[in-house]
């Protein structure tokens, strides 16, 4: 399957577009990182890709069907969204939060079925969260919370998962846990789009990278080609150097001047 956007344009304020003609494709079984400076349009693009914001020009389609033609329930069964923050006013347990992912399958006047409960159990299990079932959400660490939200997206049963900065505010070990877990899901056939401010996470975990600047995609393709000094300097406006070019791990750093 493929989730693809063609020629998306969006402006919060008329005359000041945050997206101008962005086209991108996410296929099943791949992780696509969206990089780019603050305000370059990544998050707006992700919202459009998830059908949470209607683009003013262009369209998002799932295979051959425009996403705008889906009902909210149908859309939620196809595309899941993992927000950066989730602040419930009450202290739900991890399992209760994950079960909410079954919303597109539960009718207005009915309760989650045994099937829905099983899906929530399985999603927790798949992310190694079995022991967290009855833990209140507010007692979880930042990394555990993020994993619970990924599990909720998984319980949604969607073919594509969109993650808004899943590596923000996490220590390196937790960033690794979250992105490795989504990597596992991608190997199982899920399609994943991730916004991030970490070029090095893109090098580590992405199959493809799209680099945003000023509401457009500057360049997209293989992580090694995109996350390199030339494109990064054009996007972020400061020089970068590559560390560990060649075999083995590789990283980019701002060049000290």
């Amino acid at each position, binding site marked *: 399957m493929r989730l693809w956007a063609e020629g998306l344009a969006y402006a919060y304020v008329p005359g000041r577009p945050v997206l101008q003609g962005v086209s991108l494709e996410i296929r099943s079984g791949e992780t696509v990182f969206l990089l780019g400076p603050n305000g370059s349009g990544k998050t707006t693009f992700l919202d459009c890709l998830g059908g949470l914001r209607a683009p003013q020009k262009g369209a998002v389609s799932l295979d051959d069907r425009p996403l705008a033609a889906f009902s909210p329930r149908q859309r939620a069964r196809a595309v899941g969204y993992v927000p950066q923050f989730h602040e419930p006013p*009450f202290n*739900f347990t991890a399992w209760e939060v994950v079960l909410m992912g079954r919303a597109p399958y539960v009718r207005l006047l009915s309760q989650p079925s045994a099937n829905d409960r099983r899906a929530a159990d399985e999603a927790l299990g798949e992310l190694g969260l079995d022991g967290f079932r009855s833990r209140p959400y507010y007692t979880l660490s930042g990394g555990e919370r993020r994993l619970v939200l990924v599990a909720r997206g998984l319980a949604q049963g969607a073919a594509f998962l969109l993650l808004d900065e899943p590596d923000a505010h996490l220590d390196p070990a937790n960033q690794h846990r979250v992105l490795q877990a989504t990597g596992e899901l991608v190997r199982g056939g899920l399609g994943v789009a991730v916004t991030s401010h970490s070029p090095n996470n893109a090098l580590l975990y992405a199959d493809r990278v799209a680099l945003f600047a000023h509401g457009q995609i500057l360049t997209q393709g293989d992580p090694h080609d995109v996350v390199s000094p030339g494109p990064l300097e054009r996007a972020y406006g400061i020089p970068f150097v590559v560390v560990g070019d060649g075999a083995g791990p590789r990283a980019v750093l701002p060049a000290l001047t």
Partner: protein
Amino acid sequence: MTRPRLTWAFLLLPLPVAFAALMVGRYPIAPGEVFAALTGGEVAEIVRQLILRIRLPRIGAAALVGANLAVAGAVYQGVFRNPLVEGRLLGVSSGAGLGAALALLLYPQPGVIQALAFAGGVVGVGLTALLGWAFGAGVLVLVIAGVLVDSFLSAVLGIVKYTADPLGTLPAITYWLLGGLGSVRVHDLLPLGLASGVGLTFFLLARWRLNLLTLADQEGEALGVRVRPMRFLVVGMGTLLVASAVSVSGMVGWVGLLVPHAARAAVGPDYARLLPAAAGLGAALVVVLDTMARTLLTAEIPLGVLTGLLGAPLFLVLFLRFLRERGGWR
């Protein structure tokens, strides 16, 4: 007790409480006689009349008022993502107060008072919803619109009170606003019962999906929820519950705020359990309070006063607990 068992215990609590309340009063009645009166058995006519025509309607009204206020409070706390709100947030009580005051001023018949109070409550929330919808239907906008409507209607109520006869109508308005179930008769139960039946049935069936309204708007939409229509439907049903309760009981505060928190502490925040538990606990609590209101002194204590006397200290405990849980105010 496990949480599901506790939920059932709370839900069924009103039955024994109501039975006990039927026995209590200026004329105490033995359990056997109460049972006989209820089941059509052998019992003195005066006892039968007292049970079926006086105490049962009043206790039934108390139970419905309690369940309605508690359920609406629990729902509004989730919908407005704020643990410190209750069902009267959106102008329903000032609207109902104004309706009742107008009826007392112009046409003081029991049925008219109840009808106008109900209509006033619905109009109050309707104004809030219109304002809120016009400005985008966000949570914050609705709350601000509610505050605006509430203070405006309260001011109009002030005008009505000011023009009312200080020897006849003004005390009647004041007593009505203090809240009480002393004047409830069998025929008052029909509209309250109908509105409660519709509203409580809706919420008990839709209870799990109420969890989804506690999410940020965008999160809910990502899960396929039509957030804004759902929010208006839920506020509409909540209004039905609160307006029908207030039109019979007058202003009864605190129940809608405290009972949901007590229920949440016992069975957790998941609406699948919270809602039945809150309904049962609210019904039982108001039956107990109303029984105290009619028996503690020779004269009736206004129910709204009693809930306030009890509610304020309870709220303090709750608030301190809340602070400790969250590790401070934020």
